[in-house]
């Protein structure tokens, strides 16, 4: 099979974050993985400890290698990417490689000087996260006083002339305020807003019972999003990401494994999907400290494991949708069925759909009462 070229790199430059959102998709336990694969050259011994964040020079090399592979867009994410002091330098390196540069941020730590420096380095666009439309609920979700600062940051981004997107993760505790969140995006002059129902990986998977909305909530929200999309069509691009447990067909995860996207995490592991490191523990990850990005994209076992359609079991193998949804999400299959090769159990044809239905039944029987969640904590061992 001819290996396609990648279009976008997600650079998760740190897992450190000042917020503690319970829906974070970052891995819950970074120490839980098997050690990185030793190489035949023995260079493993010379490499820095595998739990140390990549250096500035290492990231610059990754950016150059990604551009050479065909990548056109880079998203700087995390954790909170502003926690890295070299962010401006990395943005500049990305622009020098002609990449379109997105910053995906909580905004905490984005003062005026830094904002100007980022703009002057060539930053193309900022996606600013919000937890809700007003501070009491938003700060409760973030586990930090952040909302009012974000409002200031949004205004400053607009004043600096950088295109602004607002990102909301939608879940049981804020879904009833969807309409007000859209109003906030409009008031802040965002050109784009993502209203993404929480997907259950990392911390979100652990907190699923507290985060999954009820069917009634989901139906109401869908109607609100549809109406707002039409009303604001000339003004804001609204992307409403469906809560996939309530769907009957799976999402076309990544538009196919190893087909368009790659992610490099803070310690240099290269992932076909940002959540694969925790969801698929037996996936043998390669690291940029021991391999170049081109080899990893084209040759590695991890990128080829679910590439194309050959790996598919039934019912995917004979399904006319297989080039459309690619069998859904490998991480979700792994988390819910214990086997990443299975059809995403969200699919109505999956023999494991009952697993999803059982979760939905429990949530809908108990109603939308608040339930405790566990806040995300920072990984203790990650030093720069």
């Amino acid at each position, binding site marked *: 099979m001819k290996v396609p*070229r990648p279009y976008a790199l997600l650079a998760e430059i740190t897992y450190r974050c000042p917020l503690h959102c319970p829906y974070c998709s970052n891995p819950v336990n970074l120490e839980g993985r098997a050690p990185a694969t030793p190489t035949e050259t023995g260079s493993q011994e010379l490499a820095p400890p595998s739990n140390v964040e990549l250096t500035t020079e290492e990231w610059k090399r990754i950016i150059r290698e990604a551009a050479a592979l065909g990548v056109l867009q880079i998203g700087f994410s995390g954790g909170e990417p502003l926690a890295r002091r070299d962010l401006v330098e990395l943005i500049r390196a990305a622009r020098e490689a002609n990449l379109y540069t997105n910053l995906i941020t909580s905004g905490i730590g984005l003062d005026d000087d830094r904002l100007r420096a980022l703009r002057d380095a060539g930053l*193309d666009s900022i996606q600013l996260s919000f937890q809700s439309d007003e501070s009491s609920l938003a700060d409760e979700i973030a586990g930090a006083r952040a909302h009012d600062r974000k409002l200031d940051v949004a205004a400053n981004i607009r004043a600096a002339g950088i295109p602004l997107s607002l990102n909301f993760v939608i879940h049981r505790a804020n879904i009833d305020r969807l309409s007000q969140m859209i109003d906030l995006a409009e008031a802040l002059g965002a*050109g784009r807003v993502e209203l993404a129902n929480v997907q259950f990986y990392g911390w979100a998977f652990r907190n699923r019972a507290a985060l999954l909305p009820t069917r009634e909530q989901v139906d109401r929200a869908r109607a609100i999003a549809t109406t707002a999309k039409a009303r604001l069509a000339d003004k804001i691009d609204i992307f409403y990401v469906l809560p996939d447990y309530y769907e009957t067909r799976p999402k076309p995860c990544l538009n196919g494994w190893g087909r368009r996207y790659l992610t490099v995490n803070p310690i240099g592991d290269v992932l076909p999907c940002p959540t694969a490191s925790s969801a698929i523990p037996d996936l043998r990850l390669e690291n940029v400290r021991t391999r170049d990005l081109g080899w990893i994209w084209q040759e590695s076992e991890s990128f080829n494991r679910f590439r194309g359609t050959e790996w598919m079991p039934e019912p995917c193998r004979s399904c006319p949708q297989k080039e459309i949804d690619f069998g859904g999400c490998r991480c979700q299959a792994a988390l819910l069925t214990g086997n990443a090769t299975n059809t995403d159990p969200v699919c109505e044809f999956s023999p494991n759909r009952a697993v999803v239905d059982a979760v939905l039944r429990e949530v809908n029987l108990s109603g939308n009462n608040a339930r405790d969640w566990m806040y995300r904590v920072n990984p203790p061992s990650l030093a720069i």
Partner: protein
Amino acid sequence: MPATTISDLARPSLAKGVRLEIDSTTRKSVLLYPEGIVELNETAHEILSRCDGRTLSEIICELAEEYEADSNALAADVRDTLSDLQRRKLIEFK
């Protein structure tokens, strides 16, 4: 807006946050914007590479001359392309 309502004097430009680049893999022009990539056909490329402050009628004249094409037929193509890109918020008019 419908294609025919774009004024001859309108000055199309890339919308804020949109970049015109050459994709080094395919050697084709692409528009890059937040979370999106559009590959341009030759017509769109020829139009967009002239969206630098020139008016619509100037762009049409230039293209008609360069391709020795009938400027009325070409004007319709240019307007269609631009209104499609405007609908997708990739260009704006000044």
